[in-house]
């Protein structure tokens, strides 16, 4: 059964005709309505890439309460007085240029059957597919004595960049020299594994320069530094001896706000002039209302090929709210990678095609250990048909802290903000 030339030409003609029809109809790269809850790293990226990859075919509505995007990465430099809030803030106007409709409101409920999102102020939105990227919320019961009100006024977390970043900077500035700043770190998993250690380093950097008699106390519920441990410890020993003290296994049992005192499971009570408690974390609140946090009532299970929820069809969950696979950090960078896997899947699914096999994704995370020096951790993650794992021998950390990577860290920030929002 061989094809002669004439058969082939006829067949090719038929294919061209079919192909062009398909090009008009099937290949429009998606249509329909997507609602995105949350305009952080994940929500902004997925909104932009859905518009871009569907050639404007998919309508995207982004729901975000904050007027502008404020980055958690680099916010520790604001606390240390090295950067300003303006440096870590990006407008949502860039997304509008991609045709993303932005509603500044809070999503308070989801009806996965009727496919609607309820908003606090502006009624309901219908969707064909929903993307939920709300970041983290706090488990207040993890810190007896701490309330949301206290945490928003006196004993700050500053684990969501914004007004709390400004407020914690003010507390540090008004603290007299000779005072104690204590940072309490929750048990992993929490958002940004190296974030607390970077914060401690940068505040020690500030104290060393401006308030040399002051002290940074790091009180970690984990047994030891959870990320880039040897690099942070070397920096602390070399740069902040006498300024920064680290204590592991410090799970909080009680906080007395009036006296600014914390009690622990093991170890002595600590009284601090500035008390910065980061409570244990769970998936963003809306995931509870939407019935998406189906892993221990704390995190959201997803099909990693599409980031579609394992609880509800047509809803995709991104970023910190997902139950992380082994070795996958809850980070801004990782969330943008989730967003791209989800965008690729959604564009295909909304044009009647199967979701593609996910690409290799990556995480790169820079931490400042001083105003001039940085350490990084970077890993690629390969989809194995079920989840993303780091291939053996791939990834790693900086061999030592260095100034070159401080330049790269700031270049990373500018590029990832532009990729998500411009």
């Amino acid at each position, binding site marked *: *059964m061989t094809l002669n030339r004439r058969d082939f030409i*006829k*067949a090719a003609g038929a294919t061209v005709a079919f192909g062009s029809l398909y090009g008009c109809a099937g290949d429009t790269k998606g249509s329909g309505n997507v609602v995105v809850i949350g305009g952080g790293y994940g929500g902004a990226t997925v909104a932009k890439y859905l518009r871009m990859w569907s050639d404007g075919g998919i309508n995207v509505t982004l729901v975000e309460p904050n007027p502008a995007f404020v980055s958690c990465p680099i916010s520790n430099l604001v606390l240390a007085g090295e950067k300003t809030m303006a440096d870590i803030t990006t407008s949502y106007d860039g997304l509008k240029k991609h045709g993303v409709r932005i509603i500044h409101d809070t999503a308070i409920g989801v009806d996965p059957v009727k496919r609607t999102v309820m908003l606090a102020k502006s009624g309901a939105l219908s969707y064909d597919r929903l993307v939920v990227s709300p970041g983290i919320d706090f488990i207040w019961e993890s810190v007896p004595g701490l309330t949301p009100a206290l945490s928003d006024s006196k004993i700050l977390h500053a684990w969501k960049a914004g007004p709390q970043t400004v407020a914690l900077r003010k507390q540090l500035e008004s603290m007299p020299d000779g005072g104690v700043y204590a940072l309490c770190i929750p048990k992993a998993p929490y958002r940004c594994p190296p974030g607390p250690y970077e914060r401690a380093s940068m505040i020690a950097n500030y104290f060393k320069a401006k308030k040399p008699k002051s002290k940074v106390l790091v009180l970690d519920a984990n047994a030891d530094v959870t990320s880039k441990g040897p690099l942070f410890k070397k920096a602390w020993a070399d740069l902040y001896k006498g300024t920064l003290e680290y204590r592991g296994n410090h799970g909080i049992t009680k906080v007395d706000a009036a006296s600014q005192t914390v009690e622990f499971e093991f170890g002595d009570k600590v009284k601090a002039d500035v008390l910065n408690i980061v409570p244990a974390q769970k998936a963003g609140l809306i995931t509870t209302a939407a019935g998406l946090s189906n892993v221990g009532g704390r995190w959201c299970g997803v099909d990693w090929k599409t980031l579609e929820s394992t609880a509800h069809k047509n809803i995709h969950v991104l970023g910190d709210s997902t139950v992380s696979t082994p070795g996958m950090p809850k980070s801004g960078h990782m969330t943008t990678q989730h967003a791209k896997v989800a965008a*690729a899947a959604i564009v295909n699914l909304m044009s009647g095609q199967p979701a593609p096999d996910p690409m290799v994704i990556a995480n790169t995370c820079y931490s400042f250990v001083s105003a001039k020096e940085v350490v990084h951790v970077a890993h*690629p993650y390969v989809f194995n048909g079920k989840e993303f794992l780091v291939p053996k021998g791939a990834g790693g950390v*900086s061999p030592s802290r260095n100034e070159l990577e401080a330049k790269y860290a700031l270049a*990373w920030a500018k590029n990832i903000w532009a*990729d998500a929002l*411009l």
Partner: protein
Amino acid sequence: MKYRKIALAVSLLGFAGAAFADNSTLSRNMASACASCHGTNGHSVGGTDPLAGMPKDEMIRKVKDFRSGAKPATVMQQLSKGYTDQQIEMIANYYAAQK
């Protein structure tokens, strides 16, 4: 018989066409992971190498040299180990075509 032949040819061509389209989408997706540091579609806004328009052979050589350790780097020698030759080629193709 003749129609069966034509049907086969159509399906073969259709498959080849779909595979080609699919491949370009997969290349686009694969390349997008790089954009977090190197800018959307490789248009870096500064401080990292722009990848848009980089000749295909140059990118393949660079990434393979990162992977083997022949070319020193800070993160790329660690990240490139996650990619196969074919995936590096897909990414290089995509960025070479970006204006």
